[in-house]
């Protein structure tokens, strides 16, 4: 085995190991494959919604707050 293959294998192991831990933590370890797909999809939807919410509302709001200089003018 070349060193490249070895590191690839290690990476694979790393990912499969932590995927297993993820399944353990979410009880996905003991459900049927199609059920896993459903729950992963649900998780993905929730995650993406949060992502969108954070980028569209929270981050833009914060940046608007930071860029605005109205309060500075008020003080002056």
């Amino acid at each position, binding site marked *: 085995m070349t060193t490249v293959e070895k590191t690839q294998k290690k990476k694979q192991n790393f990912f499969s*190991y932590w995927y297993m*831990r993820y399944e353990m*933590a*979410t*009880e996905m*370890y*003991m459900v*049927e494959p199609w*059920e896993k797909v459903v*729950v992963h999809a649900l998780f993905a939807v929730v995650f993406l919604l949060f992502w969108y919410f954070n980028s569209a509302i929270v981050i833009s709001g914060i940046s608007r707050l930071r860029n605005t200089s109205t309060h500075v003018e008020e003080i002056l």
Partner: protein
Amino acid sequence: MAAMVENGSVVDFKITSKNNVRECNGKPVNLLNGKVNHENNGYVKSAPSKNGVIKPKVQQGISPMDWAPFDTNRGSFEQCSLLTTALTLLGLYVLMFLGFVNQLLFRPKVATEKNREGYAPLYNPFEQFYSRYVYRRVAHCFNRPICSAPAAEITLLERESKDYNWSFRFTGRKLRCLNLGSYNYLGLSPELGSAPAVAAAVRRYGLATGSPRAELGTTRLHHELEETTAQFLGVEAAIVFGMGFATNTLSLPGLLGPGTLALSDENNHASLILGLRLARATVRVFRHNDVRDLERLASRARAEGHWRKIIIVIEGVYSMEGSVAPLAAIVALKKKLGLYLYLDEAHSIGAMGPRGRGVCDYSGVRPQDVDVLMGTFTKSFGAAGGYVAGSAALINSLRAHGHAHSYAHAMAPPVAAQVLWAMRALDTPLGQQRVRALRENTRYFRGRLQQMGVVTYGHPESPVVPLLVYSFSKMMGTVERLTARGIATVGVGFPATPLSKARIRFCLSAAHTRAQLDACLAALQDVVDELGLRYSRRAPAQPLR
């Protein structure tokens, strides 16, 4: 005991005497009760008052118990972090949701009854749902078929499922595993020498007597067993039954009735709970092994004053928590307040105490101070059945009023012979060596687990060792991996435990060698590393030699 006697400035001698003589197996020695400083400490007023009016003076009269001289250790119940609990509950919620979706989309692969319109449902719908869509997924970890005697090693029949545990098929392979799942505390399996005695009993009396004890079912073996049991426990008399579960469920109704109050530990076994319900006694539940909570309930009940009897119902060693009852403290409380005590020693008899006499022996309590000693022969003695032991009056009353003596089938003679043999074997040097071996195994195993950083529940001396894994997936993962490494253990989850407290239960035995335990611990170490079961947030103990 000694500490109690020393500071027992017994002022109210005359007042308590009648109560205590009646309630403590008629042994006047028990008069020396705890620290009683008040003249009127409630005994006088607690006689049944018909109109239920409670004078406030009575409530003040019961002085609080001084717990300082007693070991009131509940056992170790390390709390897990909030995150663990939240994740476990979330996981369960997701499981149930998936079960619901599953049920909507597919017909469950179970037998269904037809033409049941208009009938009440046979099963509780939630229980049915739970067992089909949560329990089924881990069903391969439970009720695993075996095909050998449950000694230190055991042979499992491998089975597989092609439809996600709706049905199983044997593969034909057999797995030889180290057995950490049987309540074989002393390792007294038949090959150790009981066979001749048991065979002789079969030849002489047959396999079964074909009748209850009260009719034609009594043989000389039964008398001998009852006498030996009473001697073994150090009390006046004993009565034996063919089944441990029924010993509780059928004896409690014979002892209690409406108008009696039972103070029951929250983790009591199903047989005790069923027995109390059948007895139609009022049941109040106290926090597991918490003597202060028990005291609060007991003194309130005493103050209420209208109970015919108040009885504390506890176990010696709790099989799901691995904890040991603080017996000395409870006995002191019982004496102080004039209560009765029912002690189920199913898991402790033979397994606890320097002489294997159970928790009385372990906590230095005289067996006469416990009103009803109950135990089973299924665990340490490697047989079947149960006993109740205590004063002769109690046992005679049970023969007349308990339902098991007159209606249940007598204990089979070969079983009686096995129990007799085991009880006698326990008192030989070899037997005592087994008791010591169990204690050493327990200490070693629990110590090593603590070093590993996992959460274990209970008392350091209890041979039942629950290892907390919290979620079903981890329980299943652990059991599967341990089986693959040749270790057979039992996983336990809801409904036998609280929802988010699934655990692996190791039952130690005197038959396990140090090498076997080390093999088990090595396998466990791998699994703990792999699944991340190091939940303990305590500093690890000092390394064991």
